[in-house]
């Protein structure tokens, strides 16, 4: 018997029971639809995460921060617990003291990001470059004017910044003694006219930093409404007041106890005026703020979106470490650019061996991937269960069909059908339901992915400010094959028992069956 004939007989039998076939197939369609959606979005999201990460050097970057306050065991011996108490309580108090000491470290982090450490980081195998994150808060003085400014180093990977130069030019070398200034900062500094803004290009400005060398002691701050920063004169005045405080203490209306308390404190940490350090640079250009679209696409670095003045990277680094006291202190953050993605883990390991904190985007991506994998695996299991439930329906329906078609099976056997033929006809009926249901489920899944993708991309754009170019749903050939094959497999397996029952039908009994 030819397969085409078996197929014809199976199709004919299904066609005879249109409503039942349709209802049975609906279960398979639903299961396949969910399976398709789940596999499709899982692949799509995984690909999107990887693709978006590869758009920049993000996947090759390792973020390095100073090492924490150390391990509790390092300082446990330095902690003394006074008093007569039980051993258990002494242990609890000791642990609390150790944690307190680890959390507060006035001398800065135990493992600082010094210039020497940056050099050591640069020497790690596979590290292409070290980008220190330089942030300096100070004043820019030009002529008679001065204006508070957030000063940062440029990020060499920020390819949007050169395009945002509206007057003058971008840096030519990373060591150049130059600065580019924000048009908004110029506006705040009183340069409201286009002509004045252009005129500053090529002029010298003095960058002045008031450096606090200690993290403990007295501080006096002035917070003004609407985010208006303290002026240079206000800052200078407050600094002087701070220095005079111990001498002026008797003039304040304080109780004796209060005065004594402050005197003790000032004796331990005498108020000291900030060190003033300055550097003169040439204004190379003026840059504009990024547009909404540039911010959404994350084409601009954080530095270039929040800086008033941007300095060339190496010049800024040199300035940072030349400032009084900075050589002993630590950078908050540096970025290592690794030559290839597969070496990132090794670099992270080596940085951690230096007892610095290291974090790679790949780790975040791996976690995200795992999270989505778990979510979509759960969806896949639900889909598989839906298909299995549909399979039970098919088995039940086909068993009823065998009963109804007992006489027909008997006739077929009487005119030459073998047990194998009968079994095959029922198995093919199951397979057809799977094939049709799986294919329709797949097509519906694909159709549903069109509005689904639009909705998901809108949500990503709104919540994450990432404009995705490609679809979040993908339909690779393996997915199409997997969904249809799984549906066919499940429904064919569901037909095995009914098919065996049909094959066992005794023709003599069947021919008497009404």
């Amino acid at each position, binding site marked *: *018997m030819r397969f085409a*004939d078996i197929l014809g007989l199976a199709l004919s039998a299904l066609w005879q029971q249109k409503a039942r076939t349709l209802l049975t197939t609906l279960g398979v369609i639903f299961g396949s639809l969910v399976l398709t959606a789940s596999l499709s979005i899982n692949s799509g999201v995984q690909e999107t995460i990887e693709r978006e990460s590869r758009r920049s050097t993000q996947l090759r970057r390792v973020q390095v921060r100073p090492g924490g306050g150390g391990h509790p065991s390092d300082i446990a011996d330095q902690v003394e617990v006074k008093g007569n108490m039980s051993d258990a309580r002494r242990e609890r108090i000791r642990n609390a003291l150790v944690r307190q000491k680890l959390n507060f470290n006035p001398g800065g982090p135990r493992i600082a990001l010094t210039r020497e450490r940056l050099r050591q980081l640069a020497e790690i195998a596979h590290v292409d470059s070290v980008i220190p994150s330089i942030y300096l808060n100070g004043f820019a003085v030009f002529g008679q004017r001065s204006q508070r400014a957030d000063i940062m180093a440029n990020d060499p990977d920020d390819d949007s910044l050169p395009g945002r130069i509206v007057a003058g030019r971008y840096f030519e070398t990373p060591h150049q003694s130059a600065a580019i200034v924000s048009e908004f900062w110029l506006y705040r500094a009183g340069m409201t006219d286009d002509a004045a803004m252009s005129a500053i290009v090529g002029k010298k400005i003095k960058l002045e930093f008031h450096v606090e060398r200690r993290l403990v002691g007295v501080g006096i701050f002035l917070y003004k409404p609407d985010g208006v920063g303290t002026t240079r004169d206000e800052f200078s005045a407050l600094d002087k007041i701070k220095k005079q405080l111990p001498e002026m203490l008797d003039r304040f209306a304080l109780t004796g106890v209060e005065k004594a308390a402050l005197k003790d404190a000032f004796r331990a940490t005498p108020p000291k005026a900030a060190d003033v350090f300055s550097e003169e640079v040439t204004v190379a250009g003026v840059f504009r703020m990024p547009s909404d679209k540039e911010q959404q696409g994350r084409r601009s670095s954080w530095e270039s979106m929040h800086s008033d003045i941007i300095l060339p990277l190496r010049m800024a680094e040199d300035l940072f470490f030349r400032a009084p006291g900075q050589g002993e202190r630590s950078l908050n953050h540096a970025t290592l650019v690794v030559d290839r993605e597969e070496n990132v883990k090794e670099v992270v390991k080596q940085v951690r061996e230096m007892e610095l904190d290291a974090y790679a985007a790949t780790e975040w991506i791996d976690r995200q991937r795992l999270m989505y994998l778990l979510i979509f695996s759960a969806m896949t299991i639900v889909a598989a269960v839906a298909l299995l439930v549909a399979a039970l329906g098919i088995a039940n329906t086909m068993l009823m069909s065998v009963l109804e078609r007992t006489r027909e099976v008997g006739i077929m056997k009487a005119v030459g059908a073998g047990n194998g033929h009968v079994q095959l006809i029922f198995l093919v009926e199951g397979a057809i339901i799977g094939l049709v249901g799986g294919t329709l489920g797949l097509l519906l899944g694909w159709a549903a992915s069109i509005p689904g993708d639009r909705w998901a991309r809108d949500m990503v754009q709104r919540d994450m400010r990432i404009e995705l170019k490609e679809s979040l749903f993908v339909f690779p050939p393996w997915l199409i094959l997997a969904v249809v094959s799984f549906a066919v497999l499940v429904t064919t397996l569901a037909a095995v028992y009914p098919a065996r029952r049909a094959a066992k039908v005794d023709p003599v009994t069947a021919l008497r069956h009404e």
Partner: protein
Amino acid sequence: MNAGLEPELAVRCSDIAKAYGSTAAPVYALRGVSLEVRRGERVALLGKSGSGKSTLLNLLGGIDKPTRGSRQVAGRDLERLSGRELARFRSEAVGMIFQSFNLIPSRTALENVELPMIFAGRPVRQRRAEARYVLEAVGLAQRLHHRPAQLSGGEAQRVAFARALVNHPAILLADEPTGNLDSATAREIMEQLMEHVRARGTTLVLVTHDEDLARSCTDRVLRLKDGQLV
């Protein structure tokens, strides 16, 4: 395949018994029937209801198995055939006609007649042409695409007749083929059947309880009573 059956014999049954029910309390439909039918011979099996006629016919047609005894039909020892060989035997060696026609209701006359050829693995065009030819030969040229419910009793039996003949079987087994038909139609059907049998020299085993029909259409009349030939 030929199990020592003399070339002139179409059927040889030896000590055939068929019991139904449990082995502890069997009910015998046939009790040791031995039978020989020559090639081209037309034999009638006469007997009352429950005498075992149809059981014997089913055993000869290979759709049932005896409890005891051996069957050699159309050169084959049915007891030695595998399930697949037995199916091929039913498809090619014998044609069966039933009192209740036994047509598949969902299939047209043409498709019903095609069925044995489908299981014999014949190509679509060939079997379609053959089925059409046989149906036209039995006078159903206008009823090819009608389903059994749209046919009269006589027409349905002629479709069954066409289905039995279409693979050119050596032996035709007819179980009360006119039992459900009026006398005029019955006569017409039998005339057609006999015409074919005579023309092709087909061996015929006809089960009936109509003595006149048995005598007029066959060469030999065998009588069954309580599962035994008398």
